[in-house]
């Protein structure tokens, strides 16, 4: 019933827009699908309200417009009608309750890995926004990419979101809704692709001059292709801190691939100051080394945490 309604709404929207590239309503994974269903469900009720108001509005305007000819009509004095007013208070409340229940359910459902694949361990990817590029670290595979992602299909991905500087928003509309990346904070976002293909991801939260081009591509592929890609990437040149610090400077870069991740020096979810210090030249060699040692410990801790997390989720 729900899906029937949703479907009919979907077609209505299609016809209205006259174009077929409404990415958000064309989901390629379970997360985006839940959201698209919720959206179509709400559009149904909203269209109902719109139609009621528009019809009433038109009828009243036509019927009670002042006519040039015809008798002088003096409108009656009506102060209100308690019954009617109760009706149009209660009906919206009912509609809102009907909308609020699936909303709250979906809010909590999206905090977990998608149900259908919850038996699989999610792949953890740290997504870090840096003015104006995206850095992706695969701690378990020990690879790092810039401005592009590879993910296996039908496999939950747990994104750990952080920012090196300005607040960004990690968004792959085909796969699901966005979440902010912030310095010194870490957010978690589950996404999954059910259909192989290339999707566009981007920063959705304004970050200044280079914001428009702060995009990346997502390649969803079969598990085998993914494994192959991982193996290939592990042969890529090693990420050095010097190289990573270059990435901290404002600007755009091409797609890049490295073995090793930056998590051995810094986790932007915990250290809000790293990029600023690099830009101010405050991280000299000596401090670098010190920082290196410090976060080696925290890195191994974190890996441990990640594993614990994924174990928890797999139950």
């Amino acid at each position: 019933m729900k899906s029937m309604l949703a479907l009919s709404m979907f077609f209505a929207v299609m016809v209205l827009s006259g174009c077929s590239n409404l990415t958000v309503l064309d989901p390629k994974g379970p997360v985006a699908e839940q959201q698209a269903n919720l959206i179509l469900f709400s559009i149904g009720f909203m269209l109902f309200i719109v139609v009621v108001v528009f019809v009433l509005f038109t009828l009243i305007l036509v019927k009670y417009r002042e006519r040039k000819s015809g008798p002088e009509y003096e409108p009656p004095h009506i102060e209100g009608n308690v019954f009617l007013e109760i009706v149009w208070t209660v009906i919206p409340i009912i509609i809102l309750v009907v909308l609020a229940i699936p909303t709250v359910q979906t809010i909590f459902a999206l905090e977990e890995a998608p149900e259908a694949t919850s038996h699989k361990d999610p792949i953890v990817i740290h997504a870090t926004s840096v003015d104006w590029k995206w850095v992706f670290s695969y701690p378990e595979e020990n690879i790092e990419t810039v401005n592009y992602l590879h993910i296996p299909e039908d496999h939950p991905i747990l994104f750990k979101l952080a920012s090196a500087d300005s607040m960004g928003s990690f968004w792959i509309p085909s796969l699901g809704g966005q979440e902010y990346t912030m310095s010194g904070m870490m957010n978690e976002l589950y996404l999954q692709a059910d259909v192989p293909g290339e999707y566009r991801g981007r920063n959705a939260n304004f970050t200044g001059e280079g914001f428009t081009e702060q995009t990346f591509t997502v390649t969803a592929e079969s598990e085998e292709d993914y494994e192959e890609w991982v193996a290939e990437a592990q042969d890529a040149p090693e990420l050095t801190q010097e190289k990573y610090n270059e990435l901290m400077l404002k600007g755009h870069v091409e797609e890049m691939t490295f073995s090793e991740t930056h998590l051995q020096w810094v986790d932007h979810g915990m250290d809000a100051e790293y990029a600023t210090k690099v830009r101010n030249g405050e991280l000299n060699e000596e401090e670098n080394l010190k920082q290196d040692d410090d976060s080696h410990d925290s890195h191994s801790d974190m890996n441990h945490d990640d594993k614990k997390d994924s174990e928890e989720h797999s139950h």
Partner: protein
Amino acid sequence: MASNNEQTNSHSHFPWSHVVGFGLSIVLTLLALWIGFYSGFSLTTIMVIVVGLALVQATIQLLMFMHITESEDSSVQVGTILYAVFIAVAVVAGTIWVMSFGMHYM
């Protein structure tokens, strides 16, 4: 308008309400101090009690020193302050609640 004006009837009397208010303020301050340092309650309990005491003391100031209820507009005055307290609670509690996420990473 003078009917609800307690102050007008006691012009020449000794300012008892002020003295009582002052005494209560001192007692409440010392009590808060004692609860904070010597009661041995948990931090949450201490804060709940101490903030409660602060609210009592604020009420005393409003009633006994500031005569919030004395003028013809006392209902507006009291309403303003009560609404302000609602806003204060919404802002302080809401902000702490909303901003408490992600803290375990700090």
